[in-house]
């Protein structure tokens, strides 16, 4: 994701990344002007197992360690001293092992799309599978940063950074994605609600790595993403994702709504539940959008707009996303 940490109030003192060791014995004014990260030790992992071994070994030695994926969120934060890890484990070489979008028939959950954590934004945007079966990703990727940034940024990096204005957390919440997290002792699979703990916080432990995102892709599902930003490629003022699955009778069997940039949470359980069992009529969608905007969004006033404005936009975007998702579900799917 692109760097705009200075422009995001969520990066302030109250954030989970305390500003520590600023300057670390150097002339901090000069360092700030040069926009270079504070010194760190660099390790380059050649496999997931290697990265996990490094995490464990450095963690036991008491070091503050961060994983570097595409680097388009972490490096800007390091330049601003909002993150000052002592060790970086660069997992760029894992793009071969963890860069994929593929179909999988899950034994218990039906068909799903599995996305490797090192899959870059560009690959998500250009994936024919996602464009056919989970168009919310294609919609969102079109408006994430710009083409050059999308060449580097990864889905795993975006989700683990968990910037409050970040788009893919809302996308994953809307489609009910599950996250596969690996440690030296094995893997665990968690729902988005457990994964995403708030701004810059996830359930991934210090000795674990997010390796895969599993997206349910049942027949009769449709999804869409809507975003309002101040200029092309910017962080969202507000964004909303939605997914709808229709049964043979045209009633909603599954519904998902995800929000970006309007508070700590990304999911809308009450609004989702209101849609179940009936057809996705304009009234039903309007009702769900009102619940999401009035009860589940928690926007704050900042330089991107007032809380009142953002709440209004959230309602409009949820309505639009649900309407498009329902049309796609009733049409060719995706």
């Amino acid at each position, binding site marked *: 994701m*692109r*760097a*705009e940490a*200075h422009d995001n109030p969520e990066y302030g003192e109250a954030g989970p990344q305390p500003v520590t060791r600023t300057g670390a014995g150097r002339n901090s004014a000069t360092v700030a002007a040069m*926009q*270079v*990260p*504070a*010194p*760190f*030790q*660099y390790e*380059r992992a050649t496999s997931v197992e290697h990265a996990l071994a490094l995490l464990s070994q450095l963690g036991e030695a008491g070091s503050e360690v961060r994983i*570097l994926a595409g*680097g*388009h969120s972490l*490096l*800007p934060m*390091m*330049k601003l001293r909002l993150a000052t890890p002592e060790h*970086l484990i*660069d997992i*760029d070489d894992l793009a071969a092992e963890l860069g994929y979008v593929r179909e999988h028939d899950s034994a218990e959950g039906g068909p799903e799309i599995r996305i490797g954590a090192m899959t870059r934004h560009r690959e998500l945007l250009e994936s024919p599978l996602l464009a056919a079966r989970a168009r919310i990703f294609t919609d969102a990727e079109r408006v994430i*940063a*710009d*083409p*050059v*940034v999308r*060449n*580097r940024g990864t889905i795993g990096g975006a989700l683990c950074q968990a910037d409050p204005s970040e788009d893919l957390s809302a996308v994953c919440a809307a489609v009910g994605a599950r996250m596969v997290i690996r440690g030296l002792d094995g893997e665990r699979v968690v729902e988005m609600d457990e994964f995403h703990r708030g701004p810059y916080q996830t359930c991934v432990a210090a000795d674990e790595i997010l390796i895969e995102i599993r997206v349910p892709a049942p027949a009769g599902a449709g999804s869409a993403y809507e975003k309002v930003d101040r200029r*092309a*490629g910017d962080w969202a003022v507000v964004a909303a994702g939605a997914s709808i699955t229709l049964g043979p009778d045209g009633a909603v069997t599954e519904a998902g709504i995800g929000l970006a940039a309007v508070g700590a949470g990304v999911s809308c359980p009450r609004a989702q539940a209101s849609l179940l069992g009936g057809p996705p009529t304009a009234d039903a969608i309007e009702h769900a959008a009102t619940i999401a905007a009035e009860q589940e969004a928690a926007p704050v006033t900042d330089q991107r707009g007032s809380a009142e404005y953002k709440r209004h936009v959230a309602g409009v975007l949820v309505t639009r996303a649900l309407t498009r998702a329902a049309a796609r579900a009733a049409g060719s799917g995706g």
Partner: protein
Amino acid sequence: MRVAMTVNDADRAADAEPRTLLVHFLREQLRLTGTHWGCDTSNCGMCVVLMDGEPVKSCTVLAATASGHSIRTVEGLEVDGRLDPVQEGFREMHGLQCGFCTPGMMLTARALLDRRAAQAHPEPLTDAEIREAISGQICRCTGYTTIVRAIRWAAEHELADDKTAGTQPVHASLGGESCR
């Protein structure tokens, strides 16, 4: 640490701190100052270079990460005294004013044309595709119209093939034609 990479088809290596960003490694360690250094926050796109053929913002890539990869900078566009069709296009269509964004713009254009060539794209390049490709890069002279024309010129002259565009020696191509 020792950082080694291929830059413009030549093996280059230098010592650098792990925190050294690719843009500074290229400019300061290798003295390749054609890559410009702008906003430093991955917004402006002045520092775009090609990493394994694809444009990246070199202010937001560690030199250590680029180690072992192939980097192409604006200095690598001209080969043996012959301008790249993209460079010819920028000259023919007045694709630059102050020139600060030009290296990054030209490299993104090069990658766009290379990707199309690799895919044997049958459709002609549209202005919308060009504008999308350069949308992560800012021209503060706001000369986008001529930049788009320059890239389209390069695409058209590449199609015509390597026989015309890019085969004029630099000294000859600085002659009368460019003054039209």
